[in-house]
């Protein structure tokens, strides 16, 4: 990487971080502990007494987050989970209300709140990109005007222990997207694997409480921790080979990018399967449906996707985004331009690379982002 590109990347990242940290309370007096691998199980058992623990576990053919059973251990050997951590705060399907149609009941046809377990929970072993994604979507669910109680209650109940990435993969571009393999923003505790165990560094009061509850008390000084972590962090950042330029997105007129000539090429292979939106940690769209069995029912919300024609279909039959190319453009415009314009804090993407890995037809957000960043060069770039 040339020095100039490196400088662009660093400035972009620091600007994004500076804004994002306004949303997020850190502690100054951080506490750092070392854990010997032998003491891991003991601390984990202690934490299970206080929190419901969610961690990556190797399923059939991929790592996924799940609530750990009593004798179950996190499986921290995987690079990243197939689905992001968003479902831990914002489940793929979630009950909003219940109702009865039984007219002999006094509250018939009136929505009642559902009881959801918002007791303390901890996510152990998610990657820093997924934690950063919570801060990006927080802007959508927790607004000055409206508060989404389901998202907010779940997020507030959760303590996030992020595992630093020492071996990012070829599709990772977190350092271009305002995050990084050792990024602490969005975490409560940063967890770094060392030769003989882990270093746990608390970043927020929630993180301090978790370390206190674990009984892991082999404290080391922040300076000593920094000395051990810094070389690992530098090494990890250098392993990230993907650099995506986002610096021009803000300045370009939205309609110029919208009307750019490359969208047909970008969308050509897309089969509108929606996989990109489901694996994405920052895609937040949902549908609301009533599910009734006999006289009892539940109002549910389910993840939805702007890739589907039904997403925008009017009752009249008119569809404002009836063509595939319009839907593909919508997804990229939303993440890489509309969000940028609306919140002035970088792109709605943390660079986890899941959509790149999961896309069945190899559509690559990194390439689309480069096209959008310089739409005037697009005609030739689209052919490359």
């Amino acid at each position, binding site marked *: 990487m040339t020095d100039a590109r490196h400088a662009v990347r660093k400035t972009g990242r620091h600007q994004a971080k500076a804004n994002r940290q306004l949303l997020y309370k850190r502690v100054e007096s951080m506490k750092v502990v070392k854990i010997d691998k032998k003491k891991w199980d003991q601390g984990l058992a202690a934490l299970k007494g206080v929190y419901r623990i969610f961690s990556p576990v190797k399923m059939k053919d991929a790592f996924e987050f799940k609530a750990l059973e009593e004798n179950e251990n996190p499986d921290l050997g995987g690079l990243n989970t197939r689905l992001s951590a968003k479902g831990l705060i914002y489940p793929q399907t979630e009950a*909003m*209300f219940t*109702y009865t*149609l039984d007219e002999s009941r006094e509250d*018939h*046809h*009136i*929505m009642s*709140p559902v009881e959801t377990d918002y007791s303390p929970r901890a996510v152990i072993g998610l990657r820093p990109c997924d934690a950063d994604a919570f801060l990006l979507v927080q802007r*959508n*669910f927790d*607004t000055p*005007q*409206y*508060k*989404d*109680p389901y998202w*907010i*209650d779940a997020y507030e109940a959760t303590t996030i222990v992020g595992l630093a990435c020492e071996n990012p993969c070829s599709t990772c571009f977190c350092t271009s997207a305002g995050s990084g393999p050792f990024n602490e923003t969005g975490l409560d505790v940063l967890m770094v694997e060392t030769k003989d165990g882990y270093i746990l560094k608390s970043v927020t009061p929630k993180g301090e409480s978790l370390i206190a509850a674990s009984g892991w008390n082999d404290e080391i000084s922040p300076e000593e921790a920094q000395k051990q972590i810094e070389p690992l962090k530098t090494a990890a950042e250098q392993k990230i080979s993907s650099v995506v330029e986002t610096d021009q997105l803000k300045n370009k007129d*939205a*309609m110029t990018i*919208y009307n750019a000539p490359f969208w047909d090429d970008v969308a050509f292979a897309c089969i509108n399967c929606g996989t990109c939106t489901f694996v994405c940690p920052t895609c*937040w*769209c*949902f*549908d*609301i*449906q*009533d599910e*009734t069995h006999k006289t009892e*029912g539940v*109002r549910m*919300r389910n993840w*939805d996707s*702007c890739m589907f024609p039904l*997403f*925008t*279909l*009017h*009752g*009249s039959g*008119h569809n*404002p*985004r009836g063509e595939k190319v*319009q839907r593909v453009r*919508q997804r990229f*415009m*939303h993440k890489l331009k*509309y*969000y940028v*314009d*609306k919140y002035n804090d970088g792109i709605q993407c943390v660079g986890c690379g899941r959509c790149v890995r999961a896309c069945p037809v190899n559509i690559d957000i990194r390439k689309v982002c480069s096209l959008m960043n310089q739409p005037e060069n697009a005609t030739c770039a689209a052919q490359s």
Partner: protein
Amino acid sequence: MQNPYLPYPVRIDEIITETEDKNLKTFKFVFLNKEDEEKFAYRSGQFAELSVTGKGEIPIGIASSPTEKGFVKFTVNKVGLVSTFLHNMKVGDIMGIRGPLGNSYPWEMLEKGKNVVIIGGGFAFTTLRSSIVYMLDPTNRPKFGDIHVIYGARSPGMLLYRDELAKWEARSDINVHITVDGTDDPGWKYNVGFVPAITEKKAPPADENTYAIICGPPVMIKFTQPVLDKQGYGHHNIIMSLENRMKCGIGICGHCNVGKEFVCKDGPVFTLAQLNRMPREY
């Protein structure tokens, strides 16, 4: 934390079949809890999610005016699952409404003595009815300059709120031009012709204090806009209300997104000047 997805329980108090094809019915709702009516304080141009328990929610413009107390009214076209079920419901049935949602017509600005030209077509006359009733309220009328209304439908039997239209037509403090595409009724005493043609003949001359509010089917808007352009209406003086598929109504679920705006939260009312800078995804 108040749950913005929780509808206020209401009872259907009255159902009026508005049009000869029976596809449009006006529902008058009364809040089960009196205090919910106060929380539902609204402005003309806003909408609400009608929640039919067990079927789902639909976003519908509020047809009653804030000056009418004790109830809220919505006129609903029968098109999909929820609206069809609603059309079969009876007086006394319990359901929910959630809102008010969205911005509204820009009353703060219009109430500074502006002239208002309302142009409506077909069943997109509901929030316009709310606006007319609001402006004609004796305490509000002095705040506006001249008021014109141009409203058309396919045939006399397809006009909404026919009794009210006739009363407004007879008043001197509002200029109402009713039109139909065609009719074989020899007693028809109003205009015959499409809305753009009537607009060309009847709309007052453009000036910076005159604002046109347009609601209607896309084809009406398509042919009315050139007429207003020709008459010199600036794009900041043309106000439109959009519709898009919606679920949450509060700018969270993503369905009605157009550019960086949500039709539900940043709209549904936009000026043409604003729309010119947005993708035409509505």
